[in-house]
């Protein structure tokens, strides 16, 4: 066996060269075959016999896997088993640590040879899988559909029940999205509210909408791009005023632990703006009379620890009692801004720990900055109708001048919207139903607009809107003669309309636009060139960047956990919500830049730039950045920052409130970067670490996790997980760089891999991920593929992933090449028949 692997590797490289050079990606079924036929079975079986059968024998059946006596000559026939083998080979996770292992070249050669054999068979007869027949729109998709149908920028996701996610998957998986009574009730209620808002009917009673700023957001600087320069703190809200009328805007200031308004020891000016114009400027603060309360809550209960009554009343209610304006506003989306005029305090120069905890303490009551706590918008009062809003313009493509024109105009409006909402040409039955509801609404509501509203309310609850349905073609269902059935036995092509929906929900999380729908109606999407053109057009639309960043990437990288991050204020007294928000914004902008610039996905790891504002730059130790605006910076030390792995968001969401966790980080890396997720811990394992005893310096993280190395049951998995996490130990629990850890010793950011190599630090981790150029793109593709298909990937999808990545190599694995590869793959355009699945 000694000389063989080298020869074998050369031969394999030859295959790969042939495969890459003959890439053509024009048709659905890939034309590139992965190289000439060369039987590899004599090479695989000896390796199995030598290294694998000791445990995976027919007698022992370790982990349910039997490799003794399998037919290694024809891997394609047992693809399900061999895919599992391939995963272990690629991850180098088998044989386990302590058992004899083949050398690097053998690993590579075996994996490649198996992949080649399976991929060849797949190319001849790809299995596209079968997505569930009924696929409900999730919350985000529903919200975006409303936005696109009615040009209405409202957030209804909070009004709808949460979407279920199966573990580690996405919230757009067909089989998991259920339809319950709660859903239906909410759809009925939301449909009514949204259509009334869109059409411009006044609400039944005035409402108060309240917007809060989280307690720990620091308001010492320009808070948002929507507020003017020279302002400090506050908030800017894009609010959709339902109808022309009068509205009351009321501001509540931030209070601390004992319900005192903060910062009332000196006068400050508070501005209220509408669409940038100053409505009113208030003076707040500096009017507390009498003796103040004790400066800090000592809890000794001495009578008189409260201030004089007058002072107490001012500090608890009086200070912000009159902060409201009542103004006439025209219907439509407008910007409401509340902020202080910028008057800065010179820092004392004395280092003082910022008092933070679950509440803001008593010390911060007087001479600090006042902050905005919440903004309420109440109304409409004295409501008139809504004449001209973006949503009315979107809906009312005609206006009936006389009563006789009403029906015709209604039909025009409603069938136009039905086509977009149902994602197919409107039928006579659609028109019939909607006109019936229009007539009822017209009669009961007394106006043309009321009729349109009621019909739209009906439309938003229609199954054709809420569900994406995949119907088997009639010929498959009916049962045909043998020959016709043979042709359609395995799979059938999705219709153009189904494909259009799939495409728009993939790239935009929303309904197809008119252009895409028109192309589908004309049957043009079966032309692969036209299809590619549409994909590129859609990717260039900013909706794609938003959807792929906020929905795909946020779930892939588990970034939605960011808002749940809690940090021990005793250890990280400099932490606040402004930093947390900055983490989220950095990652969002970074991911977005790679998409909008169509960069290689490898840039996610190796990029030498990121986005920071002053707060984040201070945290990262990047000098010379001032102001709250985010801007791109070039990073000079890629050993300390650079790429996703140096993002504070990811480092914070993979830590505990008071310490780092190499295990959480290692698992995150294996799940989301390497694509080789570890199995869950065995049941009954206590995973809480003992807290270090007070007094002496605590042990290092490595020492505390010693059991993972010494205990054989633990080390099977942890030998793969922990080293990766150790490589990131220079980053503390909130992503800051540190040279010494809580034990007082210099950080040892090295991890001993199962292969015997060592990975060191961020740079080492990055290099490890990039060592095999196809590895990371495969991980990204697999995740993106599942998201695009709306189902879990199965073993028979893995060849498709490999094919897509192979084809994308010529384009340096740019996002667009992965997306186009996915769209062109059989699983996206076809569906296995019920017969084939059975």
């Amino acid at each position: 066996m000694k000389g063989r692997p080298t020869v074998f590797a050369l031969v394999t490289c030859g295959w790969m060269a042939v495969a890459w050079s003959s890439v053509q990606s024009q048709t659905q079924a890939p034309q590139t075959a992965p190289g000439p036929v060369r039987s590899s079975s004599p090479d695989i079986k000896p390796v199995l016999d030598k290294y694998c059968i000791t445990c995976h024998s027919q007698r022992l059946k370790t982990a349910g896997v039997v490799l003794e006596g399998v037919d290694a000559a024809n891997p394609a026939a047992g693809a399900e088993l061999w895919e599992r083998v391939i995963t272990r080979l690629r991850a180098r996770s088998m044989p386990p640590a302590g058992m004899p292992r083949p050398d690097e070249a053998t690993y590579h050669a075996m994996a490649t040879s198996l992949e080649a054999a399976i991929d060849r068979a797949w190319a001849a007869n790809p299995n596209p899988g079968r997505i569930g027949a009924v696929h409900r729109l999730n919350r985000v998709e529903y919200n975006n559909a409303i936005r696109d149908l009615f040009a209405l920028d409202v957030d209804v996701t909070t009004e709808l029940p949460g979407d279920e996610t199966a573990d580690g998957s996405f919230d757009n998986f067909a089989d998991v999205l259920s339809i319950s009574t709660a859903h239906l009730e909410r759809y009925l209620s939301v449909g009514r509210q949204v259509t009334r808002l869109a059409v411009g009917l006044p609400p039944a009673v005035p409402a108060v909408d309240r917007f809060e700023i989280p307690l720990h957001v620091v308001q010492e600087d320009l808070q948002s791009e929507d507020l003017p320069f020279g302002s400090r703190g506050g908030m800017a809200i894009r609010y959709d005023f339902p109808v022309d009328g009068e509205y009351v805007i009321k501001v509540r200031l931030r209070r601390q632990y004992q319900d005192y308004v903060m910062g009332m020891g000196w006068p400050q000016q508070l501005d209220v703006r509408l669409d940038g114009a100053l409505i009113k400027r208030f003076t707040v603060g500096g009017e507390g009379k009498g003796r103040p309360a004790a400066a800090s809550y000592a809890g000794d209960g001495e009578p008189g620890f409260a201030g004089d009554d007058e002072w107490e009343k001012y500090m608890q209610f009086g200070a912000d009692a009159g902060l409201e304006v009542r103004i006439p506003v025209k219907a439509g989306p407008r910007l409401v801004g509340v902020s202080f005029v910028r008057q800065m305090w010179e820092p004392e120069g004395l280092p003082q720990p910022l008092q933070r905890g679950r509440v803001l303490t008593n010390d911060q009551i007087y001479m600090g900055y006042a902050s905005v706590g919440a903004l309420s918008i109440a109304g409409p009062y004295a409501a008139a109708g809504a004449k001209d809003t973006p949503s009315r313009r979107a809906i009312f493509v005609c206006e009936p001048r006389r009563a006789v024109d009403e029906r015709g105009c209604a039909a025009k409006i409603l069938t136009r919207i039905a086509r977009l909402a149902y994602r197919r040409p409107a039928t006579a039955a659609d028109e019939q139903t909607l006109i019936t509801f229009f007539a009822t609404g017209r009669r009961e509501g007394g106006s043309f607009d009321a009729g349109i509203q009621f019909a739209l309310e009906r439309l938003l609850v229609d199954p054709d809107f809420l569900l994406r349905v995949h119907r088997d073609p009639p010929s498959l269902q009916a049962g045909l003669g043998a020959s016709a059935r043979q042709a359609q036995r395995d799979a059938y092509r999705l219709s153009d309309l189904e494909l259009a929906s799939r495409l728009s929900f993939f790239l935009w999380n929303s309904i197809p636009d008119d252009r895409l729908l028109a192309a589908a109606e004309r049957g043009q999407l079966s032309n692969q060139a036209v299809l590619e053109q549409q994909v590129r057009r859609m990717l260039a639309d900013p909706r794609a960047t938003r959807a792929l960043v906020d929905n795909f990437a946020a779930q892939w990288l588990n970034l939605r956990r960011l808002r749940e991050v809690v940090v021990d204020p005793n250890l990280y007294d400099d932490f606040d919500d402004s930093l947390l928000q900055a983490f989220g914004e950095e990652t969002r902008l970074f991911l977005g830049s790679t998409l909008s610039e169509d960069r290689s996905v490898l840039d996610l790891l190796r990029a030498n730039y990121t986005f920071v504002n002053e707060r984040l730059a201070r945290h990262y130790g990047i000098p010379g950045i001032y102001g709250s605006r985010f801007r791109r910076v070039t990073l000079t030390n890629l050993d300390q920052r650079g790429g996703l792995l140096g993002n504070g968001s990811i480092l914070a969401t993979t830590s505990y409130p008071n310490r780092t966790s190499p295990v959480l980080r290692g698992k995150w890396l294996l799940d989301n970067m390497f694509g080789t997720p570890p199995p869950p811990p065995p049941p009954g394992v206590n995973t809480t670490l003992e807290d270090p005893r007070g007094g002496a310096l605590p042990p290092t993280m490595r020492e505390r996790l010693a059991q993972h190395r010494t205990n054989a049951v633990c080390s099977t998995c942890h030998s793969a997980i922990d080293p990766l996490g150790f490589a990131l130990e220079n980053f503390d629990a909130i992503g800051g760089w540190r040279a010494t850890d809580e034990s007082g010793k210099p950080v040892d950011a090295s991890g001993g891999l199962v292969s015997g190599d060592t990975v060191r630090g961020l740079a080492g981790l990055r290099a490890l991920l990039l060592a095999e150029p196809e590895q990371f793109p495969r991980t990204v593709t697999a995740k993106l593929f599942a998201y695009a298909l709306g189902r879990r990937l199965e073993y028979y999808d893995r060849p498709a992933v490999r094919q897509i990545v192979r084809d994308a190599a010529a384009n340096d694995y740019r996002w667009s090449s992965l997306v186009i590869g996915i769209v062109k793959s059989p699983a996206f355009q076809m569906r296995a028949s019920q017969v084939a699945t059975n």
Partner: protein
Amino acid sequence: MSFLTAKALPRRTILRGLGATIALPFLDAMLPAASLRARAAAAPIHRFQTFYVPNGMAMEYWTPKGEGSAFELSPILEPLAPFRDQLQVLSGLKANWNYIHAGASGSFLTGTTRGGRTEVEIFADVSMDQLLARHFASDTQVASLELAMDPPNNAGACTGNLSCVYTHTLCWRSPTQPLPMEYNPRAVFEKLFGDTGSTEAAAREKRLREQKSILDSVTEKLTALRRQLGPEDQAKVSQYTESVRDVERRIAKAEQQAGLELPSLDQPQGVPPVFEDHLALMLDLQVLALQSDLTRVISFMIGKEQSARPYPQIGVPEAHHPLSHHSNVPELIERMSKINRYHVELFSKYVARLRATHDGDGSLLDHMTILYGAGISNSNAHSGDNLPLAVVGGGAGKLKGGRHLIYKDKPPMANLLVTLMDKLDVPIERLGGSTGHLQIDTVSGL
């Protein structure tokens, strides 16, 4: 008022628009009213409410002097004098889980003996009101109401190192599922009366009609859709159809009640800034909900644990929670007792309304079992011994009022909960860490 009308719902009303292949469950509404009334006479309608006060109690001013029926109302309990004959004060019960503030609200209705161990571990037990809600769900439009006066503002660790969740709610649907308590009267209104904006009957009936017509039309489409799918794929559509039927059933119930003349109330716009106004609205809604039998289980917190609310209107402008840490200084205890008495005053006004509201063969109060109290006794020490508890109401004939019961053997509070479940005709074996039943019918003095 009786929710039973002589009009039984014709089966045809629901079947309109539906294929005959789907079998309908037999709804109570289809029983002629007479038989329902007969059933009602045999099994009285119970209503259960919790009225929770936070931050412990000035026990020196709470505990009545004397025992049994010859007891003297204490300064804090004095406002309940008119209802003495439907009042039982219980002394000596112990909190099941005594841990600063989390245990107080966390075990009050659950009887759990422990919560989570860390800030991220959320764990208690099913609460008593939810067990009742499951039982009553088929009879009322809303299974239960969970209401509070404070928004759930905090996140992270609130008390000790445990999650704020324990102080935000009394109600747990399962050991790991705390239920949010609604503090916005607008949202409560919409939950009870829909989104028409008022309790006005015509508006509500119109809205119900609209919803029914939408659902009928949708059902036709669903039937057609189902036919186009193979048997294996029909499951999802069946889910959809099930939900449609469920909503239609609720609409049918709502229609029965829509014809009732209810006191006119517009949908509140939001949360009133003044405590009294806010409280008045929330209590109005509760009386309405009980009066119209929209629900029979209400859990209400007049303040959440660690509430820092000041009460300048009664001359106590200090924040409640800091004041509750009075270090046993007599003047400060007396000051805090004013807050406790104020809560009882507000509660007794509410009880008076319940007594004045007609309900079948008596008043609402006659059919109610109200649990008033706190999960902490001595606030300064967060003590869980000798909790301040009172049971108010007629309990549909099952409760004997006018007594002060003292339990010398310190039974856990969960035993009281189990006993109350018995009284409510929904017996259970065990709740949380209960060790048995509590004797509340024959204790010394009777």
